[in-house]
């Protein structure tokens, strides 16, 4: 049980003020007329500084997107299947991109294997309104991967035990 250096932080790209902005916005922007002004006031910053820094974080990928984030579960997307795939190392980059581009896949990550009990190195989270819809979508992925799929599983969630937004200090 060790975390590989690959998961190292890349905090050099952001400074203390960026961190403050992240901390102040991570649970959501205010639903007020001038939400960024509110954040700026709270942090004693200029609003243009806040906007510029958020734009920079978007540009360098620290922020993936800013948007309206729905609660899928509440909207009827009650089934989520974590599909896991055993993909040959030399093919994973190409096939990972293929799976990651599917619109019903919400996360697509390469992760380390843990042999012998965990041979799966590609994780694709699939959401659906029903169990069957998820199974159907996973079958679509399997068809796409063909012989390069050396085995896969769907791990359905049976219970959400905890779910909160990202937290940093």
């Amino acid at each position, binding site marked *: *049980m060790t*975390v*590989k*250096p*690959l*998961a190292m*932080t*890349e*905090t050099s790209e*952001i400074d203390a003020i960026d961190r403050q902005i992240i901390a102040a916005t*991570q*649970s*959501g*922007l205010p*639903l007020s*007329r001038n*939400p*960024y002004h509110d954040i700026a006031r709270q942090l004693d910053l200029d*609003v243009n500084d806040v*906007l510029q820094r958020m734009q920079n974080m978007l540009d360098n*990928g620290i*922020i*993936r*997107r*800013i*948007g*309206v*984030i*729905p*609660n*899928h579960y*509440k*909207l009827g997307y009650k089934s989520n299947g*974590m599909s896991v795939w055993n993909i040959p190392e030399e093919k994973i980059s190409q096939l990972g991109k293929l799976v*990651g*581009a599917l*619109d*019903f*896949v*919400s*996360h697509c*990550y390469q*992760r*380390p294997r*843990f042999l012998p*009990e*965990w041979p799966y190195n*590609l*994780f694709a989270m699939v959401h659906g309104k029903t169990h069957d819809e998820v199974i159907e979508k996973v079958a679509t992925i399997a068809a796409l991967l063909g012989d390069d799929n050396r085995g896969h599983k769907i*791990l*359905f*969630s*049976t219970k959400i*035990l*905890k*779910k*909160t937004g*990202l*937290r*940093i200090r």
Partner: protein
Amino acid sequence: MTVESIGHNETRQYKTELIQQLLNEFQHDFPLSATPYADIASKLGVTEQTVIDLLSELNDQKILSRVGAVFRPNRVGASTLAAMAVPEHKLEEVADIISSYPAVNHNYEREHHFNLWFVATAENVEQLNAILADMEQKTEIRILSLPMEKDYHIDLGFPLQLIQGGHHD
């Protein structure tokens, strides 16, 4: 038009369509401007107040997770997906222990030999490893740590279908 005026039969369909547009079309590219809700309103052809009221209503109903940024994992701090194979009779007890850590923001029970899956986040890898080691000691169960090695997902949000038999785009 205000939210108060919506809710009559003839306008309910319109409101659902407006909500669907808000939830689907603004999962990314939420404006980084002084008045983001007014910008959205002008794109939808409604008033700023309507957008704010609708989002507030969705927020109160927990249909919104939030309006805000989605951060790229592993850029801000260090995180990992961790799995445990917990004997059925100990599952609740172990899940409670894991969820009690502030570092844990997602914790799911899943159908597999590895039946407890959680995401742990810390400020750096050393802290993260210390937390996982502490969990192993407290629960006396080994933890598989599967940190992300590569992200293949192009994150544009997730298409939602709210209207029965409606279009899906």
